[in-house]
């Protein structure tokens, strides 16, 4: 099957978005032609094609008319994505850390605070980092301005660890605009992430 989509007049990144959508509806061996009106779109579409492992050719018909033709291949033939080894991924898939309080263990709160700080620090030193860290209830304080674990959490985030804090908890403690690391999440995502985890660690 051959399909042509007209992306002339569309600003970046829409031509790629549309080509992606169209390519997902096509089968291996099908040909997708994308019409665009600028050189940048041609180059982005060719990047997209090589990312997917499709063979593509770009042609300039006039100053405002270019075509990119790509031959769709099966999903299995996509170029391997691990080709770039500049950043080694040290995260362990499926490992989830839950910080449900700003203290660790039951007892003197002063000790609990110190323990939690030490726990997060120790986490940064592990060979394998967690995939995700979820913070809820008073654990929300850990990701906000003034937290003693902030630098450690920022370091973990820069290593690719997803850090999420419960939005309801932030609102409850009046911390919504104080979040200094990671994203804000809701109970559905908390449940989904816990369900999907292969390992949950709770200090």
């Amino acid at each position, binding site marked *: 099957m051959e399909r042509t989509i007209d992306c002339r007049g569309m600003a970046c990144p829409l031509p*790629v978005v549309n080509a992606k959508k169209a390519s997902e509806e096509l089968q291996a061996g099908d040909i997708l032609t994308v019409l665009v009106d600028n050189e940048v779109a041609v180059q982005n579409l060719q990047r997209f094609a090589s990312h997917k492992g499709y063979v593509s050719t770009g042609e300039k018909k006039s100053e405002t008319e270019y075509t990119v033709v790509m031959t769709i291949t099966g999903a299995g033939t996509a170029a391997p994505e691990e080709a770039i080894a500049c950043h080694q991924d040290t995260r362990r898939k499926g490992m989830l850390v839950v910080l449900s309080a700003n203290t660790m263990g039951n007892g003197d709160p002063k000790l609990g605070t110190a323990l939690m700080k030490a726990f997060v620090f120790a986490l940064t030193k592990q060979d394998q980092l967690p995939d995700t860290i979820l913070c809820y209830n008073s654990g929300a304080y850990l990701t906000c301005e003034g937290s003693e674990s902030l630098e450690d959490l920022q370091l973990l985030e820069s290593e690719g660890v997803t850090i999420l804090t419960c939005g309801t908890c932030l609102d409850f403690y009046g911390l919504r605009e104080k979040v200094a690391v*990671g994203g804000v999440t809701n109970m559905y995502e908390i449940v989904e992430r816990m369900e999907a985890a292969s390992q949950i660690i709770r200090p």
Partner: protein
Amino acid sequence: METQVKLTKLATCAGCGAKMGAGTLTKMLEGFKTHSDPRLIVGYDKSDDASVYVLSEDQALIQTTDFFPPIVDDPYLYGKIAATNALSDVYAMGGEPKLALNILCAAESMEDKTIREILRGGYDAAYEAGAIITGGHTIKGTEPFYGLAVSGFVHPDKVLTNSGARPGDVLLLTKPLGVGILTTAAKAGMAEGAVMDRIYRQMATLNKTARDIMVQYPVHSCTDVTGFGLLGHSYEMAQGSGCTLHIQADQVPYHPEALEFADMGLVPDGAYRNRDYAQPGVRVCREIPLALEDIFYDPQTSGGLLIALPAEAAEACLAELQKQIPQAARIGYVTELQDAAIKLE
């Protein structure tokens, strides 16, 4: 957090990606009549971040302006990022911002509370910077934009231009790259919320901390990495300084997600313009994936500082920076002029 108007839908370009190409701009400014004044120690002939005018023996005035269309749908965050970006040029000159004016174009479709939130973001950034917004100018238009005109001060002997790098210097960068590619991916609906929260927070972080630490060391040259991308701004620094900048590709910090998106073709127009501008001066000395090169040319909104300082001082400065900015990194070094202005190694 939720907003009615999809602010970014009102913009055709994202953030500093909207910036006119450096090459085009230089041509456009050719041949105009201007007064010469010895007290204007940095003017637009230098392609620097801001102009600097000496007022007295111990005080020089820094002036700069920057504005761009919405880069994020949350109006408060957009205002904060735009103002943070505008204030950055003063920090890049080694100065401290003191006064600012709002520059705002509001679209007809924007509600008053949206406009108020944009301005609130701007005021919060200025407050954090220790600057006062004293007024401004607002118009209505089809495509909104916001930013500031900023005045700051610096001691005339402590001005940091983008043309002072010297052989033997080490290059430091204080914020990871990839912001332009990631905002393009967000526009395409492909970047995750948590990733974008991290990016927006980075863009709303002032370069004040980096500046305050940097000025305690014998820095030779500084610029902020914004619309022209790492290589565009490095090219300006190399040309202005008459040196070669060696960028060590595997040392440059970037957001890992940007690599995947660049590979998929979510590369903003600005990155191509920056490539056209700087590529003639860049020699690639090792195999670098195209997507990583895209990241080096990627236009940054409210990017970090690129600092050149002697190797002897660099280690201590970097250690001090990393205490407060863990992503700060050493990304290369400077030598006498070689066969190219920039060598990617």
